[in-house]
């Protein structure tokens, strides 16, 4: 032992430094190669303007959505201020808020789970299909469907709220949710009962999904059960261009008879 210790002490410090540096170098090269694996990189010059345009459009989209959320809040504030003026208005405002919550136009906070899907880090076999090793729209739609079946009440993927009009599609190797480009890793926030994950993992669909996507293709699937989850409001369009509402026979029918301007002053 003494001899071994003496030998170790006899190693020049520069060799130790070099050894550690080479170790780090090897790790970084491996990490770089792994990151390059599934996603093909293109280097042609003509793509630069396209990338810049896409980035600019994404920024514009984010700004437009922020404005929409702000305008909806302003409208809601004004409508609420008139709430105490008349029973009809108060009732309408209560129903309006409930409808907005049901439609996904209001941010929700509650118990739930967060799931994360990531591209596989496994090398694609020579006869394999590269897209099988990428987390994509089909995976996201499968997980979203399983979450609804398990009792989820509100879901968002990378900040995009899932609503009645939400399409989740692949474009090349990308995913569009609510026509917004999102990039992996994909984080799915879901509000639901406290045992939402237990319910999800008890479904045959989840077991099959994990077995095939993680087991066969190495797709990264992880989850967390925080105390509370936030799901943002839908910031897209709810304009009906080709359709119109057909009111249900509800108490609104009585209120609609009072349509018109109602004084809100003292």
């Amino acid at each position, binding site marked *: 032992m003494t001899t071994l210790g003496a030998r170790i002490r006899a190693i020049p410090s520069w060799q130790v430094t070099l050894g550690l540096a080479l170790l780090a170098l090897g790790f970084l090269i491996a990490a770089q190669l792994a990151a390059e694996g599934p996603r093909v990189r293109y280097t042609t010059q003509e793509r630069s303007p396209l990338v810049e345009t896409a980035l600019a459009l994404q920024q514009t989209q984010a700004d437009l959505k922020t404005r*929409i959320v702000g305008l909806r809040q302003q409208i809601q504030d004004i409508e609420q201020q008139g709430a105490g003026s008349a029973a009809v208005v108060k009732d309408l405002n209560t129903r309006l808020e409930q409808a907005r919550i*049901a439609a996904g136009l209001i941010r929700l906070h509650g118990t739930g789970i967060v799931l994360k899907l990531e591209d596989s880090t496994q090398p694609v076999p020579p006869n394999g299909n590269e897209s099988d090793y990428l987390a994509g729209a089909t995976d996201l739609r499968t997980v979203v469907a399983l979450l609804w079946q398990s009792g989820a009440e509100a879901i968002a993927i990378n900040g995009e709220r899932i609503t*009645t009009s939400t399409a989740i599609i692949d474009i090349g190797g990308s995913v569009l949710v609510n026509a917004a480009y999102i990039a992996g890793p994909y984080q799915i926030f879901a509000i639901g009962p406290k045992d939402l994950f237990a319910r999800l993992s008890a479904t045959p669909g989840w077991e099959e999904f994990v077995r095939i996507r993680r087991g066969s293709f190495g797709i990264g699937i992880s989850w967390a059960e925080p105390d509370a989850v936030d799901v943002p409001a839908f910031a897209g369009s709810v304009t009906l261009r080709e359709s119109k509402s057909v009111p249900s026979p509800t108490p609104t029918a009585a209120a609609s008879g009072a349509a018109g301007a109602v004084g809100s002053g003292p």
Partner: protein
Amino acid sequence: MKPGLRDLRSLLTVTVVAAILGLLIVVQLHGQTGGSELQSKSAQELTSIITSENTENDRLRAEITTLQDQLARLQTDRSNGATSVDQIESELGRIRAWAGLDPIAGRGVEIMISGDINAAAVDDLLNELRNAGAEAISIEDIRVIAMTSVGGVPGSLDVEGFLIRDPFTVRAIGRPETLVGSLTRVGGIIAQLSATNPTVLVDVKPVNQPMILPASKRDLVPAHGRPTL
């Protein structure tokens, strides 16, 4: 002299390794930044993304115009000391219809499906209709909402807990030309369905007269989530 040369050699070796190490760290960190995903797309994929984003941004601008008009009317009413019941009712009707809480009427498409279609294929069809801009969808008399998922086996599908037997009809409200075009384009969803489910017959026809799609039977008020600002 010898020890001096060896020191210089080792110093040079460490310097070169450190330089490569630094370069790799920068490359790795750069690769982790947000824009890198777009850098990995082909020109064709980028064009598709740009087209989709342009369309969505136009929709969002139209929504902003609508909301600004609505806000202006509310502000005018408020300054006149009045609250517009008409306007709140209109807003309520629009949101309830959009969310599936109320029936909805409009022109669109009717898709007759017969044969052993599986649940995943029906789900793909619903996704495509949403992507094409459908404002409301129903399967038979069941309104499709965000939470709707299709299960079961071919011939007896399960939608919202209701049994859907072969054949069945999917109705979607939206601009008929756009919906039909999107569904029946070369390589589109109908072509894919025909290729993967050869025994399934899908007949798409535009409906230019208003159809009425029913309201959802679900209670959409959350029990576990509470609204926050």
